[in-house]
């Protein structure tokens, strides 16, 4: 019999340790919510590393806030699809009939008007919108933290994601609970001391300042709590990079 070389022993030892390590890492990651919905496919490994690294290192960190004199004088609204008829009708009525529905896995599903939202504690933050294309601007965002609304709705403990929907057809996105409960995640109704202009998402935009602009969906009408998600999209689900 051929004697077993030292190199073979070391190599197979390392390989076995590697496989065992991966299996353990996978179980720990699954338990602690370190696996993103787009963890499969050829880009899944990179996305999982990015998401897991952020949830381990940056889970509770706050997006940078800026002094008032850094608010952009010429923010860029970006283009949106032409407003739907439904939107135009609500706009004609001064958005008094705008409703936000909170449903899914919550103890108390509810429907809120903008007046209801305004009666909740108002906060403001001066944060940057950074688009994945490369441009950015700083603005003051005024609204109510999403976490307060979630508390009232009674989000069930097994909930892992919030899906949120725009009134514009086929425009929605989702975040995990770390971002959902994050103190800077706002239901935004005001911008730079005024009403939130329609171009910037008025009357109601979800601001997620620790992620790229595409996660801050405009014209929010519905938020659904869920414990599972099938991700189908062109862009990475986690946009904190």
């Amino acid at each position: 019999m051929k004697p077993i070389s030292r190199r073979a022993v070391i190599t197979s030892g390392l390989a076995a340790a590697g496989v065992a390590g991966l299996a353990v890492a996978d179980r720990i990651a699954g338990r602690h919510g370190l696996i993103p919905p787009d963890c499969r496919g050829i880009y899944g490994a990179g996305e999982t590393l990015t998401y897991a690294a952020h949830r381990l290192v940056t889970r509770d960190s706050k997006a940078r806030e800026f002094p008032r004199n850094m608010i952009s004088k010429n923010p860029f609204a970006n283009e949106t699809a032409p407003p739907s008829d439904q939107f135009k009708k609500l706009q004609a009525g001064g958005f008094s009939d705008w409703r936000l529905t909170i449903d899914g896995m919550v103890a108390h599903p509810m429907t809120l008007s903008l007046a209801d939202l305004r009666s909740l504690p108002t906060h403001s933050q001066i944060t940057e919108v950074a688009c994945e294309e490369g441009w950015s601007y700083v603005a003051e965002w005024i609204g109510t933290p999403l976490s307060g609304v979630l508390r009232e709705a009674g989000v069930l403990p097994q909930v892992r994601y919030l899906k949120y929907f725009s009134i514009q057809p086929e425009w929605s996105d989702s975040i995990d609970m770390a971002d959902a409960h994050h103190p800077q995640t706002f239901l935004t109704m005001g911008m730079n001391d005024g009403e939130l202009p329609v171009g910037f998402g008025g009357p109601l935009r979800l601001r997620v300042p620790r992620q790229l602009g595409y996660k801050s969906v405009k014209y929010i009408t519905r938020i659904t709590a869920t414990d599972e998600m099938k991700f189908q999209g062109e862009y990475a689900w986690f946009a904190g990079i």
Partner: protein
Amino acid sequence: METPRHSALVRVTHWLTVISFVALLVTGLEIVISHPRFYWGETGNVNMKPLFTIPIPSSRDTVPTGYGYVMPDQNGWSRYLHFESAWVLVLTGLVYGIASLLNGHFRRDLVPERGERTLGAHWRRIRQYVRRKAPDADEVQSYNVLQRTTYLVVIFVLFPLVIWTGLALSPSFNAAFPWGVNLLGGRQSARTLHFFVTWALVLFFVVHVAMIAVSGFWKRTRGMITGHAEPQEEAMVTKEVA
């Protein structure tokens, strides 16, 4: 067995770096097309004056480029691949860096030798290259001082800078480590620097490949694949070609 020209660790990490660098470069240029304008400071958008623009059409119709043409949008997969490749590059760099500190590769092969650590020594090599003189005998088995300094700059200055400026574009990373982007002068400065450092790396890449071409492309490439550049393999290849 003769000592290989390049150790297995250097060969494997070299090619992983090549693959991830090319992927990062292609996808990075693809992402730039969606906003071929650069700014200095924290913010920048089409309503603001750019530092400079690249005179190419954009993949977004919101960018005023002067071209009546909008390129196809490829940002979805480009961004996925960019960050996945960045992980490969960073992890490869960590393995290479730690191993090379421990096994003496940096000290032995890359730090300029004593007596060579002068500008004059670098200048002498530059003149030698410009005059296209044959390399000295001591260069056959090791790098000269110009090569050593260049590799050290690429490994310890350019790659760390491109990683730092890239991380400074991550909103979540900036939330946790705000000094990372603030030290660079803001988000748009970081983006502009990321672009410039990329071109410095591309310049290295071009010169590196040109030098290899001059000194025998297949011989050098084979050396980086098999570890051996010399006789018997070369003879075999010649036979096959003939």
